[in-house]
Each structure stands twice: as C-alpha cells, then as structure tokens.
C-alpha cells in the first residue's frame, strides 16, 4: 500500500461498480462455465442433449446442496469436514428404518432429522465449548461414519420402497429432475439468506472480525451454531437424495464428498479464511464442476483422474490470483 502523495489526484471511488462487476470472480467463473460448455459441445456429440444434461446434473446437485450451507459456514470462518459422514449416518438410519418397515415420509424425516442432530452436535462442540471446528469435524467425520460401519460392517441396506425413488430419480417437469428443482430452490433460499437478511450480514461480520462482531452485539456463538445446524440439515437432505438415487446404503457412501464440497465453495470465490464470498459464485462453481466432470466422463476419463483435476482446481483457483498479483507487483 502506498500513501497518497500530495498533489496527486485521489479518486473518490477506486473502482466503478460496473467495472467491478465486469472483473468480478463470478464473471470470470461464468466465462469459464460457458467455455467448458462450448468445449464439451465440440468434444462430444452426445453432450448437447437435454436428457444427457439432465442426467449430468446429478454430478453436482447433491454436493451443491451442501455447498450452499458450507459457503455460509466458511464465510463465518468455520469449516465442516464431517458432511460426507453425516450423509453416511443419515443414510444408515434411513436404511435401518426402512428395514423396520417404516414408510417413505418417515424415512425422509429421519434422514433430515439425523442431519439436524449431527449438525447440532458439531455446533454444540464448536459454538458452546469453543473448540476449533477443523479438529471437531475431523473427529465427528470418523465418529459419524464409524457408527455406520458399526451398524452395517461390510453389509448394505437395499430394497427401498418404490415411492422413495422419487427424490433421486424422479422428474418434476420434462427433463427437470427433483434434485435440480431442489438445487434451484435452495440456491434462491440461501442467496436471499446470505445477501438480503440481517442474519447474512452477521455471517460476514463474524467472518471478518469475530471480536468486533461480538462487541457490536452479535450473538456469534448462536450464529455459528445455527450455521452448523443448517449444514447438517442440508447434508441430511443430500443423504435422502443420494440414497434414493443409489437405492442402497453402504457405510462407504459419499466418500470424499467433503473435499468436493469445499472445492466447490472455494472455487465459487468464498475466501477459505472467511469474511467474503457469494452464493451466485457457488452456484456457477457447481455448474462448472458438474460440466467438467460430465464432459470428462463422456471422454471416458476415469473417476480418479477427475479427482486429480478437482484437487488441482482447488489449489489452482486460489494459487493463480495470488501468483498473478505477485507477478504484477
């Protein structure tokens, strides 16, 4: 930072809003999304088909549902690495209830309820007892999935009722799947929550300076708790969708989801250190990741190679702007 020299004109506004919007992270992401879309269209003749694209949306919808809540959590300066394990536990609870003969509405409620309880457990440890969220959720990551392993061992729950299949396999209208509709609805809900409510402002305030937020009367512990609760609930909803789509529950379900969710959030322009980010960014990041994995899948690239690309993407999107600003200096 240079101090303004006397006599030099100091602009009253550093960057105009239009210019800022044009050069924002979201715009860049959007351009990337369009580029990937076009590249896929050229690379594979099977890409530009409404039904194929609809199928491809499963690549990201479940993860994106969690990513919305995770974005708020990361903006507030916390993180939840246990989301994939919450899915495993919620799915196991649903499987056990299904085996006991409960109908679909009860299964859904149990799945979401399990997510809620897991989120409350994380939130309690972080917000009430002041423990660091990284270790807490690394702990609950093994605990939640560990419970699934205790219940299921190397077994599996299969044979979910037919009407349960709707959540992961059903269509709302034409090619619009139930999951895609859910994705749109929650994108709007979380977008409004973060950008148009006072709760959203407190999330930013806590992420930028928790002490200052506390001194200005924000009940930061309560906000953190609610955010963990939200992440748990969204993981529960993702568990319902994923279990319904796969039609079975194994304790290894959704392994590695936490990485992809965090990648999606960071790719969406949310600062991993907290304090900044937006839901539109996360939405576009979800689309980019979905398009990339689907396009690579059409080109017969194996899953583990895609995970290399996801990993490189995660580091690359943070590294490149920093490298760029270092080169410029």
């Amino acid at each position, binding site marked *: 930072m240079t101090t303004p020299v006397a006599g030099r004109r100091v602009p009253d506004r550093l960057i105009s809003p239009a210019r800022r919007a044009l050069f924002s992270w979201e715009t860049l992401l959007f351009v990337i999304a369009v580029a990937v879309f076009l590249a896929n269209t050229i690379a594979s003749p099977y890409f530009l088909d409404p039904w194929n694209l609809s199928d491809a949306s499963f690549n990201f919808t479940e993860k994106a549902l969690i990513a919305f809540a995770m974005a708020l959590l990361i903006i507030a300066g916390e*993180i939840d690495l246990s989301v994939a394990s919450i899915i495993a536990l919620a799915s196991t609870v649903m499987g056990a209830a299904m085996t006991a003969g409960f109908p679909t509405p009860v299964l859904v409620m149990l799945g979401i309820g399990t997510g809620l309880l897991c989120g409350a457990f994380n939130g309690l*440890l972080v917000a009430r*007892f*002041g*423990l*660091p969220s*990284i*270790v*807490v959720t*690394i*702990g*609950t*990551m*093994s*605990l*939640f*999935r*560990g*419970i699934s*392993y*205790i219940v299921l*061992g*190397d077994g599996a729950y299969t044979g979910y009722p037919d009407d349960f299949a709707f959540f992961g396999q059903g269509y709302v209208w034409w090619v619009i799947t139930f999951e895609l509709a859910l994705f749109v609805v929650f994108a709007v809900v979380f977008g409004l929550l973060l950008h148009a409510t006072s709760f959203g402002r407190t999330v930013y305030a806590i992420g930028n300076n928790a002490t200052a937020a*506390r*001194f200005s009367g924000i*009940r930061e512990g309560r906000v953190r708790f609610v955010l963990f609760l939200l992440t748990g609930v969204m993981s529960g909803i993702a568990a319902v969708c994923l279990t319904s789509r796969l039609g079975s529950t194994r*304790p290894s379900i959704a392994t*590695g989801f936490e*990485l992809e969710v*965090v*990648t999606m959030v*960071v790719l969406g322009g949310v600062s*991993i*250190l907290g304090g900044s980010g937006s839901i539109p960014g996360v939405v576009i990041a979800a689309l980019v990741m979905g398009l990339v994995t689907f396009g690579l899948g059409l080109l017969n690239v*194996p899953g*583990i*190679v895609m*995970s*290399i690309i*996801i*990993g*490189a993407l*995660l*580091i690359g999107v*943070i*590294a490149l702007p*920093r*490298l760029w600003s*270092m080169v410029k200096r």
Partner: protein
Amino acid sequence: MSLLFKSREAILALAILVLLAVVAARFPAFVTPGNLANVLTDTSPLIILALGQMAVILTKCIDLSMAANLALCGMVAGLMNIAGVPLPLILLAVLVLGAALGAVNGALVWGLRIPSIVVTLGTMTIYRGVIFLLTDGKWINAHQMSAGFKAFPRTFLLGLPVMTWIMIAVVLAFWLLVSRTPLGRAFFAVGGNAHAAVYTGISVGRTQFAAFVLSGALSGFTGYLWVARYAVAYVDIAGGFELDVVAACVIGGIAIAGGAGSVAGAVMGALFLGIVKNALPVVGISPFWQMAISGSAILIAIAFNARGQGPKGRIILKSAEHRQVEAGA
C-alpha cells in the same frame, strides 16, 4: 504430585495403563512382552507419521496429504523393486521423493500463503491420483517383490524387527531436533506467536516449509516400510490413515492452534490408538468399531485439552456472557 496430574503426558500414560489393565484383566496374554512388542511394531508407522504431523501442527499448519504421500512413495518403491533397483537406492529415492512431495505443500503454503488445509486437501487427491496414473490401478503383489525388499523391515535385530528400531531412531532424532536444535525451537516459536517469531529473526514461512519437508520425508520413508511389511501396493493403501495420524497428535495433546506439544505426547497418542486397534479383535469387538472409537477419542482429547485453556473473551464481556450462559442453560 499435583504437577504430575496436571501434565497431559502423565494423564495420557495413565489412560494407556488403564487401557492395558482392562484388556489384561480378561486376556492376560495381551500384555506379555512378546505381544506388546508386536503392538509396538504394528504402531510404528503411525508413530513415525505422528511425529511428522506434530512438526507441521506445531507451526500452525496441518498436513492431510501424509497418507497419500505414503501410498505414492510406497508404490514407487514397489515399482523400483520390480525394475531391479538395489534396496539402498530405493530407500534414498523414497526419502527424496517424499521430501519433494512435502516441499510442494510447503512451497504453496510458504510462497503463496494458501492455507495448509486447502493445499493438503488438494494434494491428497492429486498424489493418490498419480498412483493410478503410474499403475493404471494395478496392484503390486508379494510374488512380484524381491525377498530382500520384503525382508528388510521384518529382520530381527536384538529381539525387535528393523522397522521398530527405525521408529525408535526416528523418535530419538525427533526429540533431539525438537528440544536441542534451532529449527526445532523455531517450530514452537512460529506456532506460539508468529509475530514474536518474526521479531526474533525466524522466518515463519521457511519454518513451515521445513516442517512440511520433514513430514513428507517421513511419510515417503514409511511408504517403503508399509509396502514391504504388508507385501502389497495399490492405489488405496493407508486410505484414511491421515485422520489416524491427526487423531494421534490430538490425543497426544499437540495443540491444533500450534505452538504446544511434546514428542512423548505424540508417541503416546499413537500408542493409545495402536493398542485400541490391536486390542479390539482380542476382546472380540468387530474391527468396524475402530473408526468410531478413534473419532470419539479425538473429540474427548480436544475437549480435554481445551479445558486447560484460559477464557476467550475480554473481561468486560464476562458478566454478559455469564448471563447468556445461564439463560441458555
């Protein structure tokens, strides 16, 4: 006496003794010297990695790529063995490769100031993916490895296998490093108070870089030990082991916020997990309990460690906080 009870190491040692006593009460054969030596050997990789992780955590970072690094170096060791490279060269190669992989993490943390959790979450998937690229997902089985390659860590020397002696040597070297060298003290200084460290002439980034190189080199070397001992190498060896390593450190009282911890703590944290893992089949509990138990152990350990820390807020908020807590309870 009261000082003894306040020390984390003493409490942990007590916990280990109680654990052993409980198991021994029903299965006296578990605590025979021969079996305890087996447990020690079995826990050696965890102890070595926990020490590397300890160095990283002391500097306020975290290395989640250790298990992937281990797997990649183990695979490279296996491939070199098939190619007929002599053992000393293989040992040197895994050490250098492991250090190089760690240096990648360290460089991203040091040079670009990317949070270590993001860096290592990314490199974790990349390193594992590279194993797949190297091998196309094929396994290296026992019959493909030379006898000398497999025998080295299992050769008995003065009543203990070479692997155990290596672990003991690493523990001693680490104790010397941490307590008797400038670099070891710098680990604590950087994690304890980064600003103060800078004023005393310690480069925070370079110290973190050194910690990552160290943890990488230890992971790489353990990769060879792992592959040689279990006589098999494939993409997923030591999958999820990074969590066990973090768990060992957290249980051992290494503060995740950096700057506090001891070699004895890390070793005992690892031993605690190793004893649990080996005792489970003996007392007739399914190994599927392991994951949930280490998760619970992490949570209990952090809750326990946090108890000793001072109050977080400023004094003027104390009364308000009290009222809030009472209202909430």
